[in-house]
């Protein structure tokens, strides 16, 4: 089995603040972490490898310091990590990001056929949930989103059966490999890495690929390949707390009518 997990380095959401004056994210001095959903994706891939053998490769597109995030995934049990980094990749939207990731997966597939591609359900900073489906569309493979359980996995029949977490319940679906899965936190519990894995990660040299390594079309990467225009970013205004009325029913009723009259909802 060969699983490729796409991971993104994101600012630690518990520490992000929005500058009230400029309405932009204050990123300075905020520690970076692996997008939390992506750690569940790595865990799922590692668990499958532990059961069925094979390899887990993690990839990310990002600046050189994103190597730290990849190293963390090595500690979590991944076999290999590749950083896709190039000045030309900067300023990518979801379209350009999924293109670069898809190109890298094609190259990996040529080296060692890929059975599964994992992504998180969404990134906690960008929050679009588009990159996973975008990669699948480019690779022409099925995409199964919001995975909360893997029921069965069979390399011989090349079938996978999973549960999807939907608002109204769970949906059980089967697909043929290769397939792309976007995963939720309910899928598994992320392990506390062992000390030998931590040592392996500390010694591990992340491989890097640039735009030429993945034979990227210069028109489809970075700012040039990104048609998205961000017109404004803002934090939604805080909602006013509602009015609560308590007391004996007749009084509450009187007060309620009074309030509705005041607000012009009722007219006398």
């Amino acid at each position, binding site marked *: 089995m060969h699983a490729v997990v796409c991971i993104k380095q994101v600012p630690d959401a518990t520490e992000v603040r929005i500058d009230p004056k400029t309405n932009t994210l204050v990123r300075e001095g905020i*520690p970076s972490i692996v997008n939390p959903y992506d750690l569940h994706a790595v865990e799922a891939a590692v668990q499958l490898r532990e059961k069925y053998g094979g390899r887990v490769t993690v990839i990310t597109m990002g600046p050189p310091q994103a190597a730290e995030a990849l190293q963390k995934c090595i500690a979590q049990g991944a076999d290999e990590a590749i950083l896709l980094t190039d000045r030309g990749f900067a300023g990518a939207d979801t379209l350009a990001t999924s293109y670069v990731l898809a190109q890298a997966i094609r190259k990996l597939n040529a080296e060692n056929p890929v059975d599964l591609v994992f992504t998180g359900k969404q990134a906690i900073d960008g929050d679009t949930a588009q990159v996973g489906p975008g990669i699948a569309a480019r690779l022409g493979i099925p995409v199964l989103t919001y995975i909360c359980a893997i029921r069965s996995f069979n390399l011989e029949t090349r079938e996978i059966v999973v549960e999807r977490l939907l608002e109204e319940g769970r949906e059980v679906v089967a697909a043929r490999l290769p397939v792309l899965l976007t995963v939720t936190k309910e899928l598994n519990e992320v392990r506390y890495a*062992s*000390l*030998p894995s*931590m*040592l392996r990660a*500390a010694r591990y040299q992340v491989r890097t690929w640039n735009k030429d390594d993945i034979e990227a079309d210069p028109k489809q990467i970075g700012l040039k390949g990104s048609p998205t225009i961000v017109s404004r970013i803002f934090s939604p205004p805080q909602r006013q707390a509602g009015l609560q009325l308590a007391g004996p029913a007749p009084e509450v009723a009187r007060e309620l009518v009074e309030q509705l009259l005041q607000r012009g909802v009722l007219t006398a």
Partner: protein
Amino acid sequence: MPEKFDAIVVGAGPAGITAAYCLARDGLKVVMIERGEQPGTKNTMGGVLYRQMLDEVIPGFWKEAPLERHVIDQQWWLLSEDSAVKFGHRNSEHDKEPYNAFTVLRAKFDRWYAQQAVKQGALLITETVVTRLLRDSAGRVIGVETDRPDGELLADVVIVCEGANTLVLEASGIKPKPRADAMAVAVKEVISLPREVIENRFQIQGDQGAVIELFGDPTLGMVGNAFIYTNKDSLSVGLGAMISEFQRRRVHPHQLLERFKQHPVVAPLVAGGEIKEYMAHMIPEGGYEAMPPLYGDGFLVCGDAAGMVIAVHREGSNLAITSGRLAAETVVEAAEAGDFSARKLSAYREKLEQSFVLKDLRQYRHLTPMMERSPQFLGVYPGLLNRALQEFLTVDGVPKRQKEKQILRRILKERPVTALLGDAYRMWRALG
């Protein structure tokens, strides 16, 4: 079978990073284990970093390291409730390369410093807590246990640099729990302000820095002090005092810090700033008498973990760095001899004796206990001095001779001559 290293360093603060840096540079197989997400994320230091000691480890470090400002102006202010007597020094020698001291933000600095050790070949393991030292049947330390699965590691020698909170030394029976009167607690805020505002308020330019230590009212006269240090575009503002004193007075350090920032001489310095970080940390201020054993069969102890802090001079990181360097030197010699016994490792203590570390610690050993026994120093004198100067400087038609008499009478009422003489003698003795 756990992996074996030449040396394991517990804690990646200034002491641990220095030890790992020197050992890796000299070709030993060394691993640093740090509980924080990154080196420095758990550190609180004010802080002033002195150049000399780190220059001995990485010559010219200050040209590359992420430092805030070089210190050219140092002040000591004695505060009463609403006034201050100020004393200070500024010189142009400290404005010249290679400089004397720098303000630093530890989250940035420690991270950079640890990377230098990694470049020398040290391994850095973060987010991992060392729980205790491992010993063989003869009681020799042979490695560490961590909170990770399969979490044991072996080594010829373990260098304990865990900082003020000495849980590993305590769990390993090397040191008892510290007493409340040997441990200070300090709180600190990083308050961001525009560069120009800082430079105007503190009369500095470019990368020049100013630091102020404040005594008396900020700690309600408890043994301790407050500080204001200038960073590039923020101030480090904090205060600390002995834990036993906080307990006795039933105040919380955070309340005191809030109060401090409203003091009439402090408020204008911090006005308009936005709080970026709030941190609390312990400082071992028991001094020489409270130090644990510095070495034993298979282990050494450096920095704050060994109680190497000279509170009056706000020195700690420099003692940590020097002790880390001397520990590494000792271990390199021990490795050459293939002998990690307490006898061989006792060379570490001798090296410390010959350096400023133990000389200074010994010189100041009576100071903190004396200050604790004599609350008048920080409790009475700052107020007395402020009132005396206020009276002296108030021009109200009272003849000067009469004024001097009034002031003297006031002083003698609060501290009789015998007490004054006694205090002078006590201070002179304590400064050794």
